[in-house]
């Protein structure tokens, strides 16, 4: 009976119904889509940042993260390698040795990072291989062939086939220098990286840098990247106390935090829109409820309890909120789904993105049913809550006062 009355009222008082449904629907859709957009762009940024080079999981010597000097290297890479190869949850892994050197060519010298990698394994570990711009990628058997960033080549004014010289320290702090021949150029889109990084095959690197069986770190590609954190914890236990394992959210803690703060500001902005929306819903509820105050007085007079009146009015709000939240969720979800499949391309803002370490301009939204349901629940609650004040207020009237109310 109460439900029937509530539904009839919603149909009879169309203005409030339409405004409430419209506003709540649009707001829900806005929230759902904004969340999908923010999550999507953050995931893209992080995925990019992680996959281009740093990787999902890194193994280093215990003190290396705090004090990355050659005193804290992995001095027995083979043992670590053996241990890692026994783990079922690891897809691939590879060792790297990073060192900072001075590159020079054509009377130009530029500081940068020279890294020894395992070329075949690296294909699965980072986007170095897929970022090939011109020339060729490295092979394990390569000797003094280098694979360098396109911006670095530009700074040194060199191209494929040209030679560059590097000067740096070997793993034993001895002076190390050699001439490298450029075999290939890569372009990841991350300016900083492209302007400073060069790679050579690790076997040859080990020879010239006195780094045999050493590594600065191992990169581990989990079978299930979404379980990286668990895998990192598990490896941390098994691999021995002289080593440390860190997942991407530790390695890139600042980026993760930056994304959080970006979301925070996004939500603050949305919150202000929501406040206005809910004031409007409150006002329309107030107008409708008070437009019906005589009727409510009569209901009270013939024996309906305040609680039953409260139930009727609350039911109305709930029905409205439910309809709108479902509609808004579907609408926002549809957009989120569509733009996940067809990422939004923001060409013209690449500079802006590069500033935040984003190498692409196509950003897919993140369509996540649970997040959408969460947003819908939030909007439902807010929408219903915003009608509570008018409902309580009208219920405080005595039956006669209500019937006499003008």
């Amino acid at each position, binding site marked *: 009976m109460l439900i029937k009355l509530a539904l009839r009222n919603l149909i009879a008082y169309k203005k409030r119904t339409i405004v409430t449904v419209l*506003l709540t629907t649009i707001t829900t859709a806005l929230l759902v889509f904004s969340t999908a957009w923010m999550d999507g762009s953050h995931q893209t940024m992080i995925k990019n940042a992680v996959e281009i080079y740093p990787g999902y999981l890194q193994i280093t010597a215990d003190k290396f993260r705090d004090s990355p000097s050659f005193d804290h290297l992995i001095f027995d890479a083979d043992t670590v390698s053996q241990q890692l190869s026994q783990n079922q949850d690891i897809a691939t892994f590879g060792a790297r040795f990073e060192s900072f050197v001075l590159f020079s060519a054509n009377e130009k*010298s530029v500081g940068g990072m020279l890294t020894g990698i395992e070329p075949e394994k690296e294909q699965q570990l980072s986007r170095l291989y897929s970022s090939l711009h011109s020339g060729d990628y490295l092979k394990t058997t390569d000797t003094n062939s280098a694979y360098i960033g396109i911006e670095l080549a530009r700074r040194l004014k060199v191209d494929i086939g040209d030679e560059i010289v590097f000067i740096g320290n070997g793993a034993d702090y001895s002076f190390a220098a050699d001439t490298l021949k450029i075999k290939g150029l890569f372009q990841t889109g991350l300016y900083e990286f492209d302007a400073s990084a060069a790679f050579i095959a690790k076997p040859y690197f080990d020879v010239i840098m006195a780094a045999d069986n050493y590594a600065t770190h191992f990169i581990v590609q989990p079978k299930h990247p979404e379980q990286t954190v668990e895998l990192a914890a598990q490896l941390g236990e098994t691999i021995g106390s002289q080593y440390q394992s860190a997942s991407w959210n530790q390695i890139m803690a600042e980026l993760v935090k930056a994304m959080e703060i970006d979301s925070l500001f996004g939500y603050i902005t949305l919150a202000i*829109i929501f406040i206005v929306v809910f*004031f409007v819903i409150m006002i329309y509820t107030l107008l409708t409820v008070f437009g019906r105050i005589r009727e409510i007085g009569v209901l009270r007079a013939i024996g309906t309890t305040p609680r039953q009146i409260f139930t009727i009015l609350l039911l109305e709000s709930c029905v409205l909120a439910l309809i709108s939240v479902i509609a808004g969720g579907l609408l926002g979800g549809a957009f989120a789904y569509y733009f996940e499949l067809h990422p939004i391309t923001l060409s013209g803002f690449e500079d802006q993105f590069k500033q935040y370490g984003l190498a692409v301009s196509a950003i897919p939204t993140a369509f996540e049913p649970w997040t959408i349901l969460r947003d819908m629940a939030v909007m439902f609650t807010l929408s219903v809550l915003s009608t509570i004040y008018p409902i309580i207020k009208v219920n405080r009237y005595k039956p006669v006062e209500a019937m006499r109310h003008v």
Partner: protein
Amino acid sequence: MFKTATKIGITSLLRRRTRSALLILMIAVSLWGLLFIEGIYDGMTEQMIANAIRSDSGHISIFADGYRLNPDLSRWIENTIELDEFLNERQQIKSTVARLKQDGLVATAHYSRGIAILGIDLEREANHSHLEGYLRHGELNFGERQRGAIIGFKLAKKLKVAIGNKIILSAQNSAGEMASTALKVKGIIKTHNMAFDENAVFIAAAKARELLSMPTGISQIAISIANEGEIASLQQQLQEEFPNLTIKRWDELYPALQQSRVLMAGFKQVINIIIFSIAALGIFGVMLVSVLERMREFGIMLAIGTKFSQIGIIILVEASILGCAGFGLGALAGFSTLYYFKIYGLDLSVFSSALDEFGLDAITYAIIRPDYFFTALAAIILASVFSIIIPLRILKKTKPVDAINAI
């Protein structure tokens, strides 16, 4: 007429106190939130820009032709006397600094990194970019024998060096040979310009000349001027006077920051439109119901000879009172909030490491621009006027007799 209308308006607004209060509150709260967003977000954007201008580009930077593409020692500004004279004559110029810049390598006993070496005149630099505001540790002093260096906090962190530690700088000199020098870290700065915090080592200009074997020449002159409006004209004058130098405005050097500004302006416009459209819907609902409820009252007024336009004025006055009260309250709250954050700043140091990523300080100082308030006032007046159009049309369609008979 207006007096009567105001009186009738106020009386009827008071009769429906809850509703009026709620509407005023809605306008006030939305305006407050809007002003907060605008002031804080603008504060952040301008801070990023100001940091870049202060620490690097100035409002205008001068380079030798071709230096921007190939920043090497052969492309330095050689004859600076004429340029200095020209710059000294301009009243609008607040300060200028000259910098020597060369890519190099910084190394400690255990660690090395590619960086930019910047030879500066500390006194002029301090005056130009208020370096003391950026200082985090140590002092702004290269020492008597100019063997000190000032580095960015991120670089310090990466190199694991503290005040007093030794670093070794290596770079290619004008003869194409590698030259090195050992220096002591005297100061650590945080400019929030990533290029500097992570990748720059400041040393005395004289020291840089010695290291690079460059007795003369300058790689960059940064100019900061009093009035931002004159940037473009000064750029033009400079270009005309010195056709063989590259003259760049800050927004040409930092296109991403300029984009941020454009993006932010667009973003604010969208938020403004969204919020005021929703608010207009609220005002509309209240005005519509208030007219419908008073059909009888207005019918009687029409019947006794009140003109329709006069009733229109009464309703408009009512809507305006609501709008203006909301605006007044919201503007006051918004202004006080922004004023507080303008003076004391919004402290986000909880997120400080993340803010670094954006080139932001931990404390954001709000900006208050008069146009926030003018836009809002215009929008609210517009919303009030629009909100009464439909109610008035309904009223016009109703005949006085019907209105009186309607319950």
